[in-house]
């Protein structure tokens, strides 16, 4: 799902900025929006997902052999699964059941009817991942749990011994909900909450999950991420998973939490991830508190949770990893509740902006912290020099994130770092002047150092003479240039560097000369520097380079010649001067999986070249190449691995979308400013033909059109996988703005 992963955070920022400028010049009254597509695929589409023509295995020498008969049969079963008059029978060999389910999921062919015919097959299944399936609803879970199936309902008796019925208003649920909704009205009153806690422990029903007969009794790993429509009612169907170890519910935006009661019957649950479940409330944690085996709990972005939640989390004595990033209601007071969690090894409280030095003081003095805590994220907390001194007590600390803790002084952090001899990862981006005193000798074990937007200058870097372990260095938007590259390379300061980000620094062709000396470099960002084609010639010596970002008005087709022998997986160039000729050079890089060539003069010939030579592409961005028309764009339909395609602000018209039906893997399609997109009647068919499409970015469609589901909540419910990245970008955007407004801050 990592559709946009390739572009580094900063490059996307820039791209967004440039797009904003362009957007302004386009029709200003058009509302651009992204549509999240969350409707399940219709039955008739399932047939097309298993084309009969794919009956062979291709070998590297170009020859083909027929697929195994068992695979042909499995695909035949899948192709016709929605037609099956009867369900797939119980008792098939497990390996065949696995094959059928895997094939259906890989091709995103699950819908309500598929599940209906499959529901007897999940009895022995130990792992199920639905996070790539579109349109997961409560009804799906009802089918999965076999609730529609007569035999299983008798396993569940309510307090009076009556059989619970399978309708959504089952006695199981109603008994639970009465104990849940009361305290909602008294959310501020902790005593009332306590009352609900104890009643949650004394289960109001006698549930007898019969391990052998339950439809999903062998399930160990269940992945329901990105199920935007899933609600607590649906979760309540999952109350008979006695072996469940891992449950992923991230980005299930409709869940509030009372449905987590179901997992009280999953005593082995170790990992529970709920990040970006935005509606999750404190009641949810009263349910989670029962899961005594839990070692990993992720609540990133559950912004409705308060300190009360921490009180319940404090009962999970086996917790090793706790992610509370962006839970911004948390205060220093809440940190007290974590005192019982002495095994905690990883704690993330980044962007909990109310947490101060006081909370940190509480934390570092808790039992077990000194020995066990190895990862701590405090980004954007109100941490100052006082807090940094407390950190020195955390002797086991290996990974520390202080991103945006602007009050910290370099010299104080340096002192703390000299005590923390195990530190490998340090993020001090957006901490102005943080690198101004010499840390030489204090960070010898550091592997990762993020200094972006921290105002590092050449003179600061001159004070480090040896970072023997350093693998990643981010100097994005720092005032360093050719001298620093020369210093790091010539004096062998960073002999193991694999990743170097010099975006928006002051690098010219003279600095480029030094780059080949970083023999192990795999990733290089040179966005917004003063590099010309001449400078690019030095890159040909970087024989390990996998990722390259370039952005300079002085780079043109000629420069592309120097890149043709690099083993690149991703290439991002935003120059405005690349034409079809440059594309011919780029097409020599057969290893490319991600390619961004925005804002140039690439035309139909370039598209055709790309489609012929770069078969490994999963992500392609050709936005703002206005010469591209439908004839070029339709060639791209042969890039069958594409997950992400951006043709915004090109010369294509909406009818080209019809050609893209073969892009079965496509998850994200951007076509901003495309002619005739409103008139396109077939928009609904497109989402049916592309079973993986989750996100369509086009100019606003009138609501009454109704072709796309969920168009109203485009701001929050964008394709779930991307939204966390996005919030990161937005935050950085803010910082850019504040920096632009006050550059003085950086001139430390």
């Amino acid at each position, binding site marked *: 799902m990592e559709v946009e992963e390739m572009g580094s955070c900063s490059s996307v920022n820039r791209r967004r900025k440039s797009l904003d400028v362009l957007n302004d010049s386009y029709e200003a009254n058009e509302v651009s929006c992204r549509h999240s597509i969350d409707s399940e695929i219709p039955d008739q589409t399932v047939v097309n997902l298993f084309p*009969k*023509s794919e*009956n*062979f295995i291709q*070998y590297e020498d*170009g*020859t*083909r*052999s*027929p697929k*195994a*008969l*068992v695979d*042909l*049969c*499995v695909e*035949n*079963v899948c*192709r*016709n699964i929605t*037609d099956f008059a009867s369900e*797939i*029978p119980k008792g*098939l*060999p497990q*390996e*065949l059941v696995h094959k059928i389910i895997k094939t259906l999921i890989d091709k995103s062919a699950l819908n309500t009817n598929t599940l209906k015919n499959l529901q007897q097959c999940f009895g022995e299944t130990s792992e199920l991942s639905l996070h790539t399936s579109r349109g997961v609803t409560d009804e799906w879970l009802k089918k999965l749990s076999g609730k529609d199936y007569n035999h299983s309902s008798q396993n569940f008796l309510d307090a009076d011994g009556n059989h619970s019925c399978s309708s959504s208003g089952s006695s199981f649920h109603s008994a639970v909900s009465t104990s849940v909704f009361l305290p909602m009205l008294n959310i501020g009153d902790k005593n009332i909450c306590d009352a609900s806690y104890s009643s949650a422990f004394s289960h109001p029903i006698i549930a007898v999950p019969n391990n052998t007969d339950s439809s999903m009794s062998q399930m160990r790993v269940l992945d329901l991420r990105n199920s935007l429509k899933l609600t607590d009612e649906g979760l309540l169907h999952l109350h008979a998973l006695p072996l469940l170890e891992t449950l992923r519910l991230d980005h299930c935006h409709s869940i509030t939490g009372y449905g987590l009661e179901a997992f009280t019957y999953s005593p082995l649950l170790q990992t529970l991830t709920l990040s970006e479940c935005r509606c999750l409330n404190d009641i949810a944690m009263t349910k989670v508190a029962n899961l005594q085996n839990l070692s990993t709990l992720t609540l990133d972005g559950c912004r409705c949770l308060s300190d009360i939640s921490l009180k319940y989390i404090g009962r999970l004595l086996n917790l090793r990893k706790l992610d509370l990033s962006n839970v911004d209601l948390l205060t220093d007071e809440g940190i007290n509740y974590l005192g019982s969690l002495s095994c905690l090894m990883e704690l993330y409280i980044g962007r909990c902006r109310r947490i101060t030095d006081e909370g940190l003081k509480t934390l570092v003095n808790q039992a077990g912290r000194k020995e066990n805590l190895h990862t701590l994220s405090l980004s954007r907390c109100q941490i100052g020099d006082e807090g940094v001194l407390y950190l020195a007590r955390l002797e086991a600390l290996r990974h520390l994130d202080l991103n945006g803790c602007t009050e910290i002084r370099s010299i104080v952090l340096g002192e703390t770092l000299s005590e923390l001899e195990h530190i490998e990862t340090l993020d001090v981006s957006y901490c102005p002047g943080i690198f101004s005193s010499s840390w030489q000798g204090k960070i010898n074990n550091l592997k990762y150092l993020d200094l972006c937007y921290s105002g590092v200058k050449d003179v600061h870097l001159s004070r480090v003479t040896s970072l023997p372990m350093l693998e990643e260095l981010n100097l994005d938007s720092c005032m360093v240039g050719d001298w620093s590259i020369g210093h790091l390379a010539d004096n062998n300061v960073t002999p193991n560097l694999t990743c170097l980000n010099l975006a928006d620094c002051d690098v010219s062709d003279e600095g480029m000369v030094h780059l080949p000396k970083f023999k192990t470099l795999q990733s290089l960002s040179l966005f917004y520097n003063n590099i010309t084609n001449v400078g690019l010639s030095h890159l040909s010596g970087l024989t390990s380079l996998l990722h390259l970002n370039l952005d300079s008005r002085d780079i043109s087709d000629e420069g592309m010649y120097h890149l043709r022998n690099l083993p690149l997986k991703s290439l991002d160039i935003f120059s405005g001067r690349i034409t079809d000729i440059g594309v011919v050079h780029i097409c020599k890089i057969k290893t490319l999986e991600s390619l961004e060539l925005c804002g140039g003069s690439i035309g139909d010939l370039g598209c055709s070249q790309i489609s012929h030579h770069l078969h490994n592409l999963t992500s392609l961005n050709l936005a703002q190449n206005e010469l591209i028309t439908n004839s070029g764009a339709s060639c791209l339909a042969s890039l069958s691995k594409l997950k992400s395609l951006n043709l915004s602000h090109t010369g294509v018209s909406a009818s080209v979308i019809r050609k893209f039906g073969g892009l079965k893997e496509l998850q994200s399609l951007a076509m901003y400013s495309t002619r005739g997109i409103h008139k396109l009647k077939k928009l609904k068919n497109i989402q049916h033909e592309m079973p993986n499409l989750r996100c369509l970015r086009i100019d606003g469609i009138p609501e009454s059109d109704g072709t796309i589901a969920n168009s109203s909540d485009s701001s929050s419910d964008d394709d779930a996988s991307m939204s966390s990245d996005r919030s990161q970008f937005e935050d950085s955007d803010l910082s850019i703005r504040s920096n632009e407004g006050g550059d003085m801050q950086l001139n430390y």
Partner: protein
Amino acid sequence: MSDENDKYVKLVSLEGNEFLMEKSIAINCSEMLRGMLESNFKESQDNTVRFPEISAPILEKVIEYMYYKVKHEKSSGKIPQFDIEPEMALELMLAANYFAV
């Protein structure tokens, strides 16, 4: 034992229908048949394998597939489709799994 006997193998369905197929193809395509025919089991002695759980149409289809596979193995052009009736897909899948073809 004549050469003729050695060249062919007889597969018998649940109804008792007998199918003759080339032994080399059977050994080549099906790990299960190879195991039986190259061992010292009774089956390898008299070149006959009985399948009391597999019906004639399914057994015939499996044999048809083995010939199809040998014919198109490592071909450079397009491979014609091997037709499977949806009605028999489940049963054939079970048989294919059993034969390991």
